[in-house]
């Protein structure tokens, strides 16, 4: 935030500035009617933090639905609280470290307002199931939707406008955020009840009983994959190659390399085209956009948000020392989107960029 970078030259000035800032914040708070404790505080916090993915009324979107009676009947406040604190590392659902306890409780209060049912309370004791037996049951009845070892379905939530395998993608059961938040008793209650309005059946439809639920729970407890995307924070933000050719020749080479890899060239433009007056553009900086539809669809199905970095783009820059060819480093994206399903795709995109640039500058 700005405040951190303000150089403090004069003490008095600093105090006035801060005071003014505090006053402004307070006035804004008053005007915007933030009252975290009040009944509307939760609604507003929900709209600010959750609605973008879960929908204004909890109907789902990029995230799964939160307003289903069967979900609210089995989800304890403790589960919701921990889920908001820890999120689902590597699974889009963020951790809300910025929200205080009061805010989190207010949001939970708002979610509860969607159902007349009281919140269930569970004890945290482990259930005495047989994980080996549970594993067999899981393989028979659950793998089809939740994936091998509870990895989850690929894709997000219920965004119906995109092609997906199920109307609601199955959450990852091996996610450390889920495992940390859910109690054995809540798991069991979820299995016995199922979730109407989603593909999740009650295990009773498979002829399974309470004892089988215990075994399934015992097996689910053995799943705890570390799904955090590998720490990419040290990765260079750009991929860069130097070209020994002229700008024009490098551009030609680049186009050849792009087409040679079955990509279609979408557009070639100056960096400041549309900003600088026509004819006054900086001709030393050129962007080449290209795409491959299979690639694009694949990526959007995993996470509709990656379109922010599409279509593919390589930039050419003429400097005093020669011509540089560069792109963003796609390996940063899975972390940016908190989605480890993107790892494979980002690696592929990284290698493709590097190969094309290498070809063009060789």
């Amino acid at each position, binding site marked *: 935030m*700005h405040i*951190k970078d303000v150089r403090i030259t004069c003490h008095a000035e600093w105090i006035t500035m801060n005071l003014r800032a505090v006053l402004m914040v307070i006035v804004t708070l008053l005007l915007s009617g933030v009252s975290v404790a009040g009944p509307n505080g939760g609604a507003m916090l929900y709209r600010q933090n959750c609605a*973008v993915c879960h929908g204004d009324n909890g109907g789902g979107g990029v995230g799964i639905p939160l307003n289903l009676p069967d979900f609210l009947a089995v989800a304890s406040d403790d589960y919701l609280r921990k889920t908001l604190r820890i999120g689902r590392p590597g699974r889009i659902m963020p951790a809300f470290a910025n929200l205080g306890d009061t805010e989190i409780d207010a949001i939970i209060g708002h979610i509860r307002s969607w159902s007349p049912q009281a919140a269930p309370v569970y004890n945290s004791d482990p259930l005495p199931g047989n994980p080996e037996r549970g594993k067999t049951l899981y393989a028979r009845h659950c793998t089809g939707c939740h994936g091998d070892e509870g990895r989850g379905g690929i894709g997000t939530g219920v965004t119906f406008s995109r092609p997906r395998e199920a109307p609601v993608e199955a959450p990852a059961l091996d996610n450390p955020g889920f495992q940390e938040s859910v109690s054995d008793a809540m798991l069991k209650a979820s299995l016995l009840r199922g979730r109407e309005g989603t593909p999740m059946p009650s295990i009773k439809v498979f002829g399974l009983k309470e004892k089988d639920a215990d075994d399934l729970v015992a097996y689910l407890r053995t799943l705890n994959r570390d799904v955090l995307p590998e720490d990419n924070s040290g990765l260079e933000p750009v991929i860069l190659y130097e070209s020994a050719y002229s700008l024009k020749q490098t551009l030609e080479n680049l186009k050849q390399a792009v087409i040679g890899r079955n990509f279609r060239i979408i557009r070639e433009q100056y960096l400041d085209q*549309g900003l600088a007056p026509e004819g006054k553009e900086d001709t030393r900086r050129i962007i080449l956009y290209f795409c491959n539809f299979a690639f694009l669809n694949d990526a959007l199905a995993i996470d509709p948000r990656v379109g922010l970095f599409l279509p593919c783009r390589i930039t050419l820059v003429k400097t005093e020392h020669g011509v540089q060819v560069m792109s963003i480093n796609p390996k940063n994206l899975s972390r940016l989107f908190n989605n480890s399903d993107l790892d494979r795709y980002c690696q592929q995109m990284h290698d493709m960029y590097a190969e094309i640039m290498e070809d063009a500058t060789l």
Partner: protein
Amino acid sequence: MKNILVALMMLVSPVLLAQDLFMVRSQLPFPEAMSALQQSIGKSGYKVSRVQRVDIGLTKSGYKTDKYRVVFFGDADELRAVSDRHPELIPYLPLKISIFAENDETLLLASSFKHLRPFYPGPDLQLQFDRWESTIRDILERVRVAE
């Protein structure tokens, strides 16, 4: 003092800071949200340089919507000055916001500069990132509340 301020401001700011992304949902259908976005960019003093389709061929591939665009915007002088001083940033410029339909509502999304900050510790760029981030949040917030 500063921490309190930051905490208060995060409370006030309705634009979601989900990890390193800024995301908002507009209750407007796509065409209206798109025009609200372009107006909002204008209000911030920036100019839209291009609206890029990301969706060519999407409906053919089974998608129910082809409403997916990336809106690029900037200022010619600022863009030239920054890319003269820091050519490494060029792949991230001009600034952009993606916008796509979700049923009859619209989602908007932009990236923060958090992942770039560690690489460019100089105060000039950090300040530039601050400015861009706050501008982008303002732009998105105006679209979120637009009716």
